């Protein structure tokens, strides 16, 4: 293959594998960054929704009390809803941190989401099936995000190593 820079066919460029692989690498990394951006949006969306739904629940508690909800349950409901609001805030923070620490954030997000799903199912069995399709989509998206995050991190580490070695 020609390595002549004036080769108009450009086929000579195929001979410089480092150039091609680094272009491929940056192309792949930009695609992964885009995927991580989507995951960030997903985490912030899930967190915001969790906060909104539980704030709505808390706001309705006085009405439940008027309808005869036992006083002992009121504080318990405040505690549980407060816990889920904190969880929603954690999801938002994880979304904001995804580019800094992609792998721990995506794994932690999936663990928390799966845990939240089973906890709400135990408290209210109907929650197992409510919104199941959306929950499955979130789980699958986070699982794919873990693969992307691991690949992204590996590429970053290899690029940093190559930069250190002066390649």
């Amino acid at each position, binding site marked *: 293959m020609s390595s002549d820079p004036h080769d108009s066919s450009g086929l000579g460029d195929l001979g410089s594998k480092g150039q091609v692989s680094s272009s491929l690498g940056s192309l792949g990394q930009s695609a992964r960054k885009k995927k991580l951006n989507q995951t960030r949006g997903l985490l912030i969306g899930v967190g915001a929704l969790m906060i909104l739904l539980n704030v709505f629940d808390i706001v309705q508690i006085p009405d439940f009390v008027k309808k005869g909800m036992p006083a002992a349950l009121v504080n318990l409901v405040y505690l549980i809803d407060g816990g889920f609001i904190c969880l929603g805030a954690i999801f938002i923070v994880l979304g904001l941190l995804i580019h800094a620490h992609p792998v*721990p954030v995506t794994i932690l997000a999936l663990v928390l989401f799966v845990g939240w799903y089973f906890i709400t199912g*135990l408290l209210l069995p109907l929650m197992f099936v409510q919104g199941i399709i959306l929950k499955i989509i979130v789980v699958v998206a986070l699982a794919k995000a873990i693969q992307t995050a691991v690949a992204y991190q590996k590429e970053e580490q290899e690029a940093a190593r190559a930069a250190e070695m002066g390649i």
Partner: protein
Amino acid sequence: MSQIGSHHDEVDPRAAFENWLEDVPADPSTMVCCWRCAKTVSNAKGICPFCRASLSPARNLLPDAATAHPEATAVIRLIGVFAVLLLTSVVFGLLIRFGFSTEVTYKQQLKYMLGVEGVDTVLVLFAYFWLRPASPVSAPPTVRNGAWVTAFPLLAVLLGVNFAFHAFLRWFAQLPLPPSEAAEMSKTAWLTLLAVCIQPALIEELFFRRVALDTLHPVMGMHAAVLVSAVMFGMAHIGTPLSIPVLMLLGVALGYARLASNGLVLPTLMHFFHNLAVLGFEFCR
């Protein structure tokens, strides 16, 4: 004049293909990895010249295949096993709540608990042999000795935090203490010890501090792996959701105990004595 349909006018497909390929300037910025045949090709024409797959921007990704990153696959499998463990706990919890027409006795609860723990034991052993986590991290001797010296005072502090946290929860939510089951516990002492202290210490430590920690450690730093495994440990106690925050704290301590002592013996002992202390408190109040 050429005749339409004459074989002299037939174009050799292979030659046309190669001409088409040569026609394309192989500009590195247009080179992509075909999502179907995984060959490096130019995206200038939008179609892979080898397998004719469409190279639209959505497909224009380097495949992050499971084979390229087995650590990611191992993590996803770990979370899958974790989800199944949670499911067994949920099934047990729902059975206790809805499966009995009369109030469940302590002995019945204990039997169900042992049944669920039997299933969990099988799952954890399956996960251990399936995931085959990487070799444990080795800590220097000074750290190992220091871990044994500081572990049990730290455990005493954690127990204090645990009791204080639950006392605060009971005060805030105005929850009464459940009736004492000391008499029932005495009758089933060994089963209670097995269900509350021995099995959790052995199997939970094997899963969270060996399988989980060593599966997570290759893909993230040591501290992040301890944190994530501690979150998993807390979430696994799904039957007592209000206790999850303090159990995550315990999980962090057990994770560092595992790394610092370079083995499972120290965190297992810590877990055993922690549960024994909680059982003792339930027995004595």
